[in-house]
C-alpha cells in the first residue's frame, strides 16, 4: 500500500490537523484505560497510613512491598493465613493441563473437520459451535452432578475436566478455521508419501500451526485463569483457584479494610494472564487473522 503522506493532494495542514485529532483521541483513551491500573499499582505500594492521609492519585512516598509480601504469603483467607500462594499454585495446576489438553483436542478435531472432511462434518462442527454460546450458569447443576458421579467433585481435577470440555468448542473453532486455508493437496501429497491421519497431523499440520496454537493458548489460559463461577461452585477450601481466593480474601477482612493488600492480591492474581499476553501477544492478532484471508 502506498504511504498516504506521499499521495498527491494530501496537503500538509489538513493532514496535521487530522493527525492531531487522532492523537488526542488515542491519548484520552489510553489515560482512561490506564488510570485504574495506576491507582491499583500505586495503592499497593503504600502503607495504610499513607493511603488514609493522601489522595487517591498521589504517587507512593517510597516503594513499599510489605503489602505484596502479605498478600502472597500471610494474608488470612477464611481461617487460613497463608496468603494467596497455595491458591495461586492451584490455579497453575488447574490452568496448565486444561490449556494443553483443550488445545491439543481442538487442534485434532479442527484438523479432522477441515482436512479429512467426512459425511456430516459440517453438522458436527455446527453442533460444536453451540458450545461457544452456552452460558456457564446453565451447566452448573448438571455439571455438579456429573462431577459428583465421577468422584472428582471439590477437586482441581474436576475443574480441569470442566475447563477442558468447555474450551474444546473454542479451540476447535480456532483450529478448524485455520486449517481450512491449508491446501488439501498437502494432505494428499503426504498420503501418497505413506503418512496416515496422525502422522500427517504430527509431522506437517502441528508445525504449521504455531500462530493458531498461540491464539488458542492465550485464549484458553485467560479464560481458565480468570474464571470464577466454576471455581466458586465446584470447589471449596484448599482446592479453590486464585480468583475465588481473591474474593474470599477481600470479603473475609473483618476489621480494617487493608486496601494495599487487596490491591496487591488483585495484581498477583492478574499477573499471569498479563505476562502470557505480553510474551505471546504479538502472535495473537497475527494468528486470529491468519485463517481469515485465503491464499
Amino acid at each position, binding site marked *: 500500500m502506498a504511504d498516504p503522506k506521499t499521495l498527491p493532494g494530501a496537503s500538509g495542514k489538513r493532514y496535521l490537523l487530522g493527525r492531531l485529532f487522532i492523537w488526542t483521541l488515542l491519548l484520552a483513551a489510553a489515560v482512561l484505560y490506564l488510570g485504574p491500573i495506576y491507582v491499583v499499582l500505586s495503592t499497593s505500594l503504600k502503607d495504610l497510613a499513607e493511603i488514609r492521609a493522601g489522595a487517591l492519585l498521589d504517587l507512593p512516598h517510597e516503594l513499599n512491598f510489605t503489602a505484596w509480601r502479605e498478600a502472597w504469603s500471610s494474608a488470612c483467607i477464611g481461617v487460613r493465613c497463608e496468603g494467596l500462594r497455595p491458591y495461586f499454585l492451584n490455579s497453575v495446576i488447574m490452568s496448565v493441563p486444561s490449556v494443553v489438553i483443550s488445545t491439543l483436542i481442538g487442534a485434532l478435531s479442527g484438523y479432522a473437520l477441515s482436512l479429512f472432511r467426512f459425511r456430516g462434518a459440517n453438522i458436527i462442527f455446527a453442533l460444536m459451535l453451540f458450545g461457544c454460546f452456552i452460558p456457564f450458569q446453565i451447566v452448573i447443576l448438571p455439571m455438579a452432578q456429573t462431577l459428583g458421579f465421577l468422584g472428582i467433585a471439590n477437586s482441581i481435577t474436576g475443574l480441569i475436566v470442566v475447563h477442558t470440555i468447555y474450551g474444546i468448542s473454542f479451540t476447535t473453532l480456532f483450529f478448524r478455521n485455520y486449517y481450512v486455508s491449508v*491446501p488439501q*493437496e*498437502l494432505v*494428499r*501429497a*503426504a*498420503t*501418497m*508419501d*505413506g*503418512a496416515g491421519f496422525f*502422522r500427517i497431523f504430527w*509431522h*506437517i499440520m502441528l*508445525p*504449521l500451526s504455531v500462530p493458531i496454537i498461540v491464539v488458542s493458548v492465550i485464549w484458553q489460559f485467560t479464560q481458565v485463569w480468570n474464571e470464577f463461577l466454576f471455581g466458586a461452585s465446584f470447589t471449596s477450601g484448599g482446592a479453590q483457584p486464585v480468583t475465588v481466593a481473591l474474593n474470599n480474601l477481600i470479603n473475609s477482612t473483618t476489621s480494617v479494610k487493608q486496601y494495599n493488600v487487596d490491591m496487591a492480591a488483585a495484581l498477583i492474581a492478574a499477573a499471569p494472564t498479563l505476562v502470557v499476553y505480553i510474551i505471546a501477544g504479538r502472535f495473537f492478532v497475527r494468528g486470529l487473522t491468519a485463517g481469515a484471508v485465503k491464499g
Partner: protein
Amino acid sequence: MATISIEHASKSFGSTEVLKDISLDVKDGEFLVLLGSSGCGKSTLLNIIAGLEPIADGEIRLDGEVVNDVHPKNRDIAMVFQSYALYPNMTVERNIAFGLEMRRISKAERKAAVREVASMLQIEHLLARKPAQLSGGQRQRVAMGRALVRRPKIFLFDEPLSNLDAKLRGEMRTEIKKLHQTLKATMVYVTHDQIEAMTLADRIAIMKDGIIQQIGTPQEIYSKPANMYVAGFVGAPPMNFVKVDLVKQDDQLGVILPAVLKGEPKDYFLPLPASKQLEPRENTKVILGLRPEMITHNAFAAPNIPQIECDVELLEPTGADTLCLLHLSGHPAKARVSPLFACNPGESMVFSVDMERVCLFDGESEALIG
C-alpha cells in the same frame, strides 16, 4: 513392469457424474496424457489411479492385480501436484526424504537417495532451504524429486507445469520428457494444455464430461480426430468447421464451399479424394473440417490441387506464419500462409485447399465420417 488397466470405472460427486464408464489401458513404460478442459473428470481419474478417491463402480488393476481397496501408500505410485504441495515446515532435503522416512528406511539410505535425486535434478545446493525460499521452478523440481526418490513403478502428474511462466514451462516440459526416456517408467499426466499433451505423450486420452472421447497417438488425434470436440480442442488455432453440401459434379464427389470474393458470395466445388468413400451420403449436409494449414498460399501447390479465391478480412502475423481471416459459409475461418505470400487486408487472395487431409463430420452426431 507397471501396467494400469481401468475397466468400466464410474464416479459421482453428489448428483453429478464426473466419470461415466471409463475403460483405459496404460502399457508398461507408456507416457499417457489425460487431456481435457476443467471439469471433464481428468483429475478425478488420476486421483482414482492414485487411490486418493474411492471408485464407485468398475475395477482398477495395476499389473493385472485389482487394487480397488488398496491404500494409496501401498500402490507404489508417486504423484506430482499442481501446487507442488511441498511441506512448508521441512527443508528441501526432508521434503524429498519424507516418503522414505514414512516407510522406515534408514537415515543413511535416505541421505544417499536424496543426494542422488538432487544431483539428477540439479538441486543439491537447495537441500538445506525451506520451500518458501525457493522460486516456482525450484519448487517444481523439489516436487519431482519427492516423487522420484521412492523409485515408484508409476508416476502421476496433475497439471504440474500450470503454475510456471511460459519459458520455464517449456524447459520443464523437455526435462519431464527426458526423465521419461531415462526412467522408462509408466507415467500418467493430466493437463488442459494441448501443446503439452502433443509434445509429451506416447498416447493422449481426450476427455469431456466424464467420457473419453478418443485415445490415440498425438498424430492420430491430430489428423484423425474422432469427433468435432477433439478436432476443435487439439490444434492452435483450432480447426475451421464449415457446413457444406456433399454433391456429385462430373461424376466426382465433392463439397460446395461457400466463400466470399470481392464482397459477393461465390461457391467453389472441391472434389473429395475417392478414399473418403462418402457416396452413400451424396446430397446431404456434412461438416467440413479444415485445419488452418490446409488452406494455404498457392505458390508451390501441385497443379491438380483445388484452389479458391476469396477476400481476406484481416491478417494476424505470428512471425513464422501469417493467419488470414476469411469468411467461409458465413462464419469466420483462418488460413495459414507464409508471410512472404500474404496479401494486404481487405484484398483477395488465391488459396490452395489440401483436400487429401480434410476431415468430414456428421452434422448430427459430430463424429468423424471421412
